[in-house]
């Protein structure tokens, strides 16, 4: 059997297993068939990936299956458009795309396997697993897509599966509401991508010629070297974008459609709720939905980045939106006290940081960020789901005492948190690299200012997100089990047996990945690429460290202040804004509760800080400000006590210290490898 045939079998496997699962009327058997499909797909991709790595190297393969081919009559009039019409389900397999697919599918399989023990009693779980298997098919096609049709198919499959997965809770109003949200946002995203596909067809005369666009990117990216902005522009200029002669307007429309589709699915600002809504899908399967969406959107952006390069200000628009998305995620993460939401928002911040890198020309930095995010999502969603199930609550205030009662869970949780924080190490490095390397090619003062300011803001926001995850982890680990009504501490159990092993192995693999996630750095050093910023890193490290430290202090302070406002009553202004937003169908601004809380924090923070200096009387106007200020202090005290409880197993190691250690280790490691 040739390696190509095996790849086709692997791609068709999820669909075949999905069909087989519908033959079983027993839920358990149907769900198990779906899980088996995921496992076999993972194994098949692993074999493929290994074979590519050992034998084929960087040589890409194009595999096409004709779906529909029409040779149409040619028009003799000028107004009619009559090209040939080729719909082909094409794959573009390379060592990179197969490996990426393997990692993504393996992450999904882990979540599905461990999650089954948690969900097996739920009614209709087999349907959720069917959606998950379909999502695996979608994410695999997204990674391996060799043309726009395959991309569009994977896009629609992932959108539909997200919706279908959320209907697992169709008996509840909440589930139906989330399904509606998913459907709205995904169909809009589908529409944009379809419009882009048609526009490409109209201009190129074929759907499959867009492989050339993606090839321009993949041929350079799969070498795992750092790609500069200039190189990508050169690659694009040698590709079909210029040869076809698309007008400036067409190119812009195409960029808007593709960028919009990807950012919508990625939940970028201002559509933050798209990813956050996954947190309300049935956990832990929401992790699969999250992974699929992130991977599909990232791959789409990555493949079409040359297109954005050719559009004036295109990259900068994507860059700014992604930076705003990272910042919004961090703010929302601090404003939310729902464990699933916090997890999703923190992960979303990392995913959008990858887009920041893409947009700034840092391909490999972006890809490494996205892959790490996918792996983190698998671990965090599994653990989060287990904790929520055991403590029967999603609210952080109800979850504590994990350190003493769940050793494996706590280990995985801390490893994943460390992973979140560990991202900061090479994120800082990557940011500095991008800034340094792209300066010569960025024209215009405004662009330079935006690039520098955006990178700093994004990095600061990511620090906030990391601090929030650390805060949450420390808070859940500390103290004894809660003593609240309706909660029986004796029923708290550890992860299921196989889940313990799998999660441990996965956490270990993730740690290894984090350590070795400096291939661009190594490649830059080995190849002696003089323009590689990583070779110049020692020059920048001191400055970057100083900037990072400054941002760290400011970020932690701000985070503490924001956290102090959690739970405060909504002022009337916020209520009105939220009501308007609800009326608009939550399409514009973002999620309901987190947004309201973020607005709450923002509107109360500044008056509270100002009130310290001006409140001298019982004036009815200024009294609320003083109350807000008192809440800040009270909340800070609460947080401090929560972190520093004498009986806490973490003892004197506060999360801040842990956080600082990770930062220092990351920087030291980066400098060491660079030298």
């Amino acid at each position, binding site marked *: 059997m040739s390696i190509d045939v095996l790849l086709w079998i692997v791609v068709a496997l999820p669909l075949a297993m999905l069909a087989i699962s519908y033959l079983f009327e027993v839920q358990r058997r149907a769900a198990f068939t779906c899980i088996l499909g995921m496992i076999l797909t993972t194994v098949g991709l692993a074999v493929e990936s290994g074979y590519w790595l050992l034998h084929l190297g960087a040589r890409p393969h194009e595999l096409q299956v*004709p*779906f*529909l*081919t*029409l*040779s*149409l*009559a*040619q*028009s*003799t*009039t000028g*107004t*009619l*458009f*009559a*090209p040939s*019409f080729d*719909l082909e389900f094409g794959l573009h397999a390379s060592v990179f795309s197969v490996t990426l697919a393997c990692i993504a599918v393996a992450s999904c399989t882990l979540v599905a396997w461990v999650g089954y023990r948690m969900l097996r009693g739920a009614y209709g779980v087999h349907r959720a697993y069917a959606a998950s298997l379909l999502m695996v098919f979608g994410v695999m096609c997204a990674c391996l897509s060799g043309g726009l*049709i395959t991309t*569009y*198919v994977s896009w*629609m*499959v992932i959108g*539909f599966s997200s*919706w279908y997965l959320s*209907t697992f809770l*169709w*008996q*509840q109003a909440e589930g*139906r509401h989330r*399904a*509606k949200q998913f*459907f*709205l946002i995904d*169909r*809009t995203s*589908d*529409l944009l991508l*379809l*419009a882009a*596909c*048609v*526009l490409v*067809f*109209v201009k190129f005369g074929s759907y499959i010629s867009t492989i050339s666009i993606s090839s321009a990117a993949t041929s350079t990216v799969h070498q795992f070297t750092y790609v500069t902005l200039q190189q990508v522009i050169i690659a694009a200029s040698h590709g079909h974008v210029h040869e076809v002669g698309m007008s400036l307007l067409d190119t812009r429309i195409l960029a808007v459609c593709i960028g919009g589709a990807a950012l919508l699915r990625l939940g970028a600002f201002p559509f933050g709720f798209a990813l956050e809504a996954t947190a309300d899908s049935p956990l832990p399967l929401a992790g699969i939905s999250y992974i699929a969406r992130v991977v599909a959107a990232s791959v789409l952006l990555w493949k079409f980045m040359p297109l954005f390069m050719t559009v004036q200000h295109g990259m900068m628009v994507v860059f700014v939106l992604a930076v705003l998305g990272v910042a919004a995620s961090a703010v929302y993460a601090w404003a939310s006290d729902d464990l699933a939401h916090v997890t999703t928002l923190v992960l979303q911040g990392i995913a959008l940081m990858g887009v920041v890198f893409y947009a700034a020309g840092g391909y490999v930095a972006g890809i490494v960020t996205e892959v790490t995010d996918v792996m983190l999502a698998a671990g965090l969603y599994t653990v989060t789901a287990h904790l929520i199930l055991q403590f029967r609550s999603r609210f952080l205030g109800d979850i504590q005492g994990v350190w003493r009662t769940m050793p494996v869970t706590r280990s995985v949780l801390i490893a994943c948190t460390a992973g979140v924080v560990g991202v900061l190490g090479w994120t800082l490095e990557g940011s500095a690299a991008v800034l340094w390397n792209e300066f010569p090619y960025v024209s215009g003062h405004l662009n330079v200012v935006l690039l520098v300011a955006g990178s700093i803001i994004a990095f600061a926001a990511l620090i906030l997100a990391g601090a929030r995850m650390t805060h949450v982890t420390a808070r859940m680990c500390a103290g004894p089990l809660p003593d609240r009504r309706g909660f029986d501490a004796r029923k708290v159990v550890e992860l299921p047996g196989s889940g313990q092993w799998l999660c441990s192995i996965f956490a270990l693999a993730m740690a290894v990945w984090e350590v070795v996630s400096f291939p661009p750095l190594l490649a830059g050093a080995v190849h002696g690429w003089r323009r590689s910023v990583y070779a110049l890193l020692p020059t920048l490290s001191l400055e970057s460290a100083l900037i990072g430290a400054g941002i760290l202090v400011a970020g932690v302070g701000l985070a503490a202040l924001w956290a102090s406002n959690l739970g405060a009553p909504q002022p009337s202004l916020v209520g009105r804004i939220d009501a308007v937003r609800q009326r608009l169908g939550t399409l514009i601004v973002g999620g309901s509760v987190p947004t309201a809380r973020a607005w709450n924090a923002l509107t109360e923070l500044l008056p509270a800080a100002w009130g310290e200096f001006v409140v001298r009387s019982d004036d009815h106007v200024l009294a609320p400000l003083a109350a807000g200020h008192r809440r800040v202090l009270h909340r800070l005290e609460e947080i401090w006590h929560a972190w520093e409880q004498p009986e806490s197993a973490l003892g004197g190691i506060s999360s801040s210290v842990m956080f600082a250690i990770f930062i220092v280790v990351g920087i030291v490691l980066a400098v060491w490898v660079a030298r």
Partner: protein
Amino acid sequence: MTAFLLQGLLAAATVPTPVTAAPSTTLPSTAASTGQLPHVLLSVLVLGPMLTALFLAFFPARTQEDRGRIRLLAVIAVLLIAIATLWMVNDVNSFGQTAAYAESHHWFTVLGISIAYALSSNGITTTLVFALDFTIFGLTFLRWKDRDYPRTNVTVMLVALGALNLLLFADDAVMLVAGLLIILGVTGWKASTGHMEASRSWVIVGLASIIVLGTVLSVAARETGAGSTLLLAPVLQPASFTSHVALLSRSGLLFLVAMGVIAMWMGVWPFHGWLGKLAGSGDSLSRELFIGLVPRVAGYLALVISVAVFPAVSGQYSTLFAILAVVNAVWAAGGMAGTTSLRRFVGYLSMAQGSVILFVIAVPTPLAITGAVYALVGSMLVTTGAACAAAFLEERWKDDPELRSMGVMHVMPRLGMVWMVLVIAAAGAPFFPFFTSDLAVVSGVMPGHRILAFALLASFVLIAIALFRSLREMLWGEEPHDRLVRAKDLGAGELGALGVILVLILLYGIFPSHVDTLLNSGVTELVTHVTGG
């Protein structure tokens, strides 16, 4: 045995008519090359069901045994007809364009216009007839559960099948009008048996439309100078009406009147009123025929008349039809989203499918026409399937089901899954027919009206939203509706009948390339009229 007897009878009925080859070189007859059966195959497909219906109308239906015999004979007859279409598809697919069938000879002359008995098939009609006949096989099979009035229902079904086949094969304006009259008469009579109010307006408007259409086509036949016979596909040359390009020219007005009539049969905005009435108060058989099948055949006629009869004039009204397409889609989406009646929901679904055809009339590129045929096949299957599923639910509900918190999934998971598949197919998911058709149509029309094509895309999203709303209201809910608490799920027979339609939907979606040879020949022939060959 009965089937062979029937075929023999049908063959004998058409033998006195000498079969000659079509006059055009672009549509040759296969009479000489593929044996005897192709000589009369089109006639068999048209007259066979009608004669069978006539035959069955005289069968006794007093006892259950008598009724069972009628049901069995009807199913066998429709199955044979479907197999004959399969034969034709295989033959045309094997021999390509040269294997198209044609039967034509002079019939009579009146007022200087020579009327011909002219039937022909091309790739497009072959594809449509294949889908149509198998769909009607599924519908006839559904009558198996009809214990009370099977004779009436299967007779109506068979006559409608013959008439719809006639509409697709007709090369002559008189035969076209005859087909419409048969359809109108049969279904109007059937509908009027219990739903007089709904059928009255339909019959009046339908008759008027037939008269107007007949007049327009007759005038067109004389204007084109193509002799007194109006052979739509093979005879008309692009020279016809091409000199009249002014918006308010006589040819332009004729075109608008003809398209208005066809639009009424298609049930598109603003001529969709009858569709709502029939959907709201007609019986299930009328709905399946008039919501699922007739608008699709009318859509094909609209394409043929605009492209073949008025090739140059239609271009003058391109923007008008593009706007109408978008308005129709938005209107239908709004109707689907707003109504609480399941019957009307299916009616609006049928209305929504007409938008694609309207837009293709506006920009009749080869690619768009190909996509339109895919859309016609897809909507024929999906809308008929939806009408059947709605009828099943209606039986259990004992009234027009109210599209609000039904909770069907609690008690009827099979019906729920069938509805879900139909909705997913109608929404244009990959590996379903509308995926291919949407891509082809939008790709084909984009160069003509870019902004309106984007608007059409946006309207697809609205339609999809309305479709998925039906899932929420129909399938989900915290508990089943009171009327459905004791309802039984679909039985094996019902599932089998729907299965025919579902299997066709999947086959068309997954293997669209299997009919591309058929479509290429048909589209090429049709587009020849626009491009000048």
